[in-house]
């Protein structure tokens, strides 16, 4: 996680230290416009999602028109523009998982939380996502719940794990890590930041 106390390299008027992380990545890429996608990955890893503010910042730093930055960011599925919920489940809907009933898992989560794929509940507690093949087909059907890959679970099993995760969270409410910060810790390399 970005050190909130130190590090005065923030390149953003808000003074948000997370922009410092982004600035370092921009420097490392030598402000190369070709590396827009890589920079957007870093930004999403740090902030958890791409806000308008972040996209404007990236455009300015890379000297790219906003149309280009928005055009590229919205073209690719992995970029998300809304703050993710505290908990999340990403259901793999690749062929192997489809054959093993991934759609039933999506249906179960949809009816439990009243969200469709890509949406977050109104209270910001849960985000449901789907992914095109996570490449762990041997474990099909695969669901990533709060960053941990779970295989061979049926719909009931998935609901159970999600409920456990949410309950555990209620107990440990003293730890006030927001999802964006948690993602920043995982900083790009980990699965959950990308999915």
């Amino acid at each position, binding site marked *: 996680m970005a050190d909130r106390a130190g590090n005065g390299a923030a390149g953003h008027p808000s003074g948000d230290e997370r922009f410092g992380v982004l600035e370092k990545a921009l420097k490392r890429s030598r402000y190369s416009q070709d590396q827009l996608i890589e920079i957007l990955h870093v930004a999403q890893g740090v902030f958890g999602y791409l806000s308008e503010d972040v996209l404007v910042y990236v455009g300015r730093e890379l000297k790219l028109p906003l149309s280009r930055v928005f055009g590229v960011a919205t073209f690719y599925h992995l*970029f998300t523009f809304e703050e993710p919920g505290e908990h999340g489940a990403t259901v793999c809907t690749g062929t192997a998982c489809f054959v093993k009933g991934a759609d039933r898992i999506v249906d179960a989560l949809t009816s439990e939380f009243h969200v469709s794929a890509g949406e977050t509940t109104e209270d910001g507690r849960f985000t449901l996502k789907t992914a095109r093949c996570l490449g762990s*087909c*041997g474990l099909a059907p695969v669901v990533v719940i709060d960053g941990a890959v779970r295989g061979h679970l049926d719909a009931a099993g998935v609901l159970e794990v999600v409920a456990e995760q949410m309950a555990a969270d209620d107990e440990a409410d003293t730890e006030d890590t927001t999802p964006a910060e948690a993602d920043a810790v995982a900083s790009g390399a980990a699965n959950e930041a990308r999915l």
Partner: protein
Amino acid sequence: MAGPIDLYDVANAERDARAHFSRRAFVCTSTGCLSAGASAIKQQLTDTVTDAGQEQGVQVVPTGCFGLCSRGPLVRVETRDQQPTLYEHVDTDTAQLIADDHLLEGRQASADTVSLELPFFARQEKVVLSNAGKIDPDRIEDYVGQGGYRALQSAVETMTPEGVVKTILRSGLRGRGGAGYPTGRKWEFLSLADGDQKYVVANGDEGDPGAYMDRTIMETDPHRVLEGLSLAGYATGASQGYIYVRAEYPLAIERLERAIREAKRAKLIGRNVLGSDFRFDIEIRIGAGAFVCGEETALMKSIQGERGTPTLRPPYPTERGLWGKPTMIQNVETLANVPVILERGAEWFASLGTSESKGTKVFALTGSLNNTGLIEVPMGITLREIVEEMGGGIPDGRAFKAAQSGGPSGGCIPAPYLDTPVDYENLQKLGSMMGSGGLVVMDETVSMPEVARFYMEFCRDESCGKCTPCRAGTVKMHAFLDRIVSGVGRRRDLQHLESLCHTVRATSMCGLGQSAPNPVFSTLEHFRDEYLELLVPDEAFGPDGNGSSPDAQRAVATSPGGVR
């Protein structure tokens, strides 16, 4: 400044170091087994050995994929005097048994094992995956210890670039990304292209759902990909290489990044490759979730940091590619074949496989099978051998219905064709294609119109939107399929669907749209009855066509504008 490492010195040192260990445990640390908890198991084995003070005699090696993903996490133990033992479904309890009994005491632990004589293993022919399960992908010394980078060394020291191209041409190697274009021919085009700057690109944007061959190669043996790409650069006169990897493969990216750093330090890539005049740099570029970026012109746009939309060919990338310079795009598995072809010779490679399809192919075997995972088999093996022998048949006594190959661009192969030899030509004749190597087995409970709808939904979501036939066509084709699957389709929906499929195939700009109708064509060809059973019969609509039966009324009511 220090010179390049001496490959033979490193290999000898590795061999001597290995000789000290009387017992070695290999833990699969590819994505599949890691998801099932392999990294804790590796740690547990290492800790137990270290706590017992046995680290001089017992080695724990994290390796790439063993292949049998459905039985993971997998641990293989090798000792000096016993046959190797492969433990399956290892958890923390069995890991402790393996560490205590087998690693420390030298006797087999009482835990579940898989026979290495299983057809799943015995029928394989490992060329590309020869190091899988044997080396630590994070150590360049491990790769060099298996003879790695010697092909590159002998190429830059003893062969002309033309000689390398000729060898690849003679080997008969064809592109493993799907279309099967002769690799040597592409290399020849690029080497003959004019230009002060040329690029070679490894395509690791493995987008087909149900396929993970390239991911496994990159995770298991990253240096092999670097060596293959460097050889392509040497042969064609390119000084810059890119590896384009899906962002969904963080582990592959991490291992490739490390491999590039180590290869640079060892002077195996960079300014003077192995002390020669050949200069070659490699950079990784990361995708962001767009299936269409597997198409070579779209991929190049994405490398340039743009929207990944394809462009019309010609001009082909070997004429005008990245930043307008001649560029060659090669699939990861294709490149992984290159070092071994140069090392063992074009004739050896050409002796594997069939007359038109040489060598081996890696398949991701998934779906309704007892053994699922990754296999590498000689071209020409029959589907029956793969499904029944290697895959161990269908679980729960259900019957085989179809094998789907080629992902959203491919098709379904039904039971009567199980004895077809698997190669580029035969699969195409059956209305499917080799594709990148995903092989999904479906049992009798799977509805084929639903499979077609599944793939069409995929293509609809993944269409980049640049050309109308694909952008609008996939939406319409999906709507027809959805009506049919939902039981409100009628005969003319099916007729419209088929005619639209022909149009989209003929008029789309790139491979995504051109092949999007394939799953429909192939399921219609082999399973038309299933579609017909779902249709509301014409008689139900009565003479005025407005519908008298409940089914027909529903069909009329739900018919979207223009679809009736």
